[in-house]
């Protein structure tokens, strides 16, 4: 990783400078391709949800089921976790040491778990109000969209734990570094998906 390396990616331009591509750029760009394919999946589940918003079949609708306070806390937790992950990325980039990186990752993990806790609480409240996924087309579409994002956050948390364990055992080597960079992309991407969820699903439904 000398200063020679330029940020070119094989995916877009196989040109004369192909030999400049380093592993870091290659691996991270491949992960971007995965993220964008994931974005298309989310886009289509969003479209399904939008077509189902009025299909409540006489059951409870958005205004009966959603709790704006809880969504505000979830949004804050995820946004803070994005920021603290950024601090972990900076600690890694500027070689602030293993303790700083692990420390910020643990803080991020706690915000992620706070988010998941409130989300599970939301889902249980919806079940209690008779708005489970089997109630109507609307609730089915809701429970295919929002928990899909929740599952992504859960897998991000598991990945974070794995990286922390790897760092404790092996220190910060090249693989761990690439892992932290890719999880950063994943985590910030999930925050962007959450913007769409709180805007389209929750705020749109309560407006």
């Amino acid at each position, binding site marked *: 990783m000398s200063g020679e390396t330029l940020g070119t990616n094989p995916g877009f331009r196989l040109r004369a400078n192909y030999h400049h591509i380093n592993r870091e750029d290659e691996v991270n760009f491949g992960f971007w391709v995965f993220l964008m394919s994931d974005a298309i999946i989310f886009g289509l589940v969003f479209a399904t949800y939008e077509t189902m918003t009025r299909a409540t079949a006489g059951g409870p609708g958005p205004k009966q089921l959603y709790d704006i306070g809880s969504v505000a806390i979830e949004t804050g937790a995820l946004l803070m976790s994005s920021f603290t992950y950024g601090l972990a990325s900076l600690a890694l980039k500027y070689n602030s040491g293993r303790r700083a990186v692990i420390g910020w990752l643990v803080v991020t993990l706690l915000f992620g778990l706070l988010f998941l806790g409130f989300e599970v609480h939301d889902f249980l409240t919806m079940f209690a109000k008779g708005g489970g996924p089997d109630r109507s087309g609307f609730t089915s579409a809701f429970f295919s969209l929002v928990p899909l994002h929740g599952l992504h956050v859960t897998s991000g948390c598991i990945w974070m734990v794995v990286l922390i364990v790897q760092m404790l055992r092996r220190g910060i080597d090249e693989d761990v570094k690439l892992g*932290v960079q890719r999880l950063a992309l994943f985590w910030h991407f999930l925050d962007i998906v959450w913007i769409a969820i709180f805007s389209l699903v929750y705020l749109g439904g309560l407006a």
Partner: protein
Amino acid sequence: MNDAHHFGGQPHAGGGSSGGSYRKDLHTYVWGLALAVTLTVVPFVLVNWHVMTTASLWIAIGLFALIQAVVHFRCFLHVNPPHEHVDEMLLVLFTVIIVIMMSGGTVWILGNLHTRMY
């Protein structure tokens, strides 16, 4: 000529050897957080107090969400052409076109069907 230099910019800001100082990078994240909090709080307040009609609320929510997504891409994912991640920006824009066509088309066609049925 050296067009890789022209297009490529710096390596990934997430790590490694790229330039820039710690303060400058921290500045980007702090600005990102401040803007994101503002762009989140405003639509929540608008909806909670219901200060407008539903239709204008939807437009406001959509606008704030779009701007916030751009802020996140710029400050957290460092998609910041022409300095960083130009390839990634092309990939993101291509994905946006695909999503607009597929999701927008779905909502359009099914919405049309819905109005014809009632």
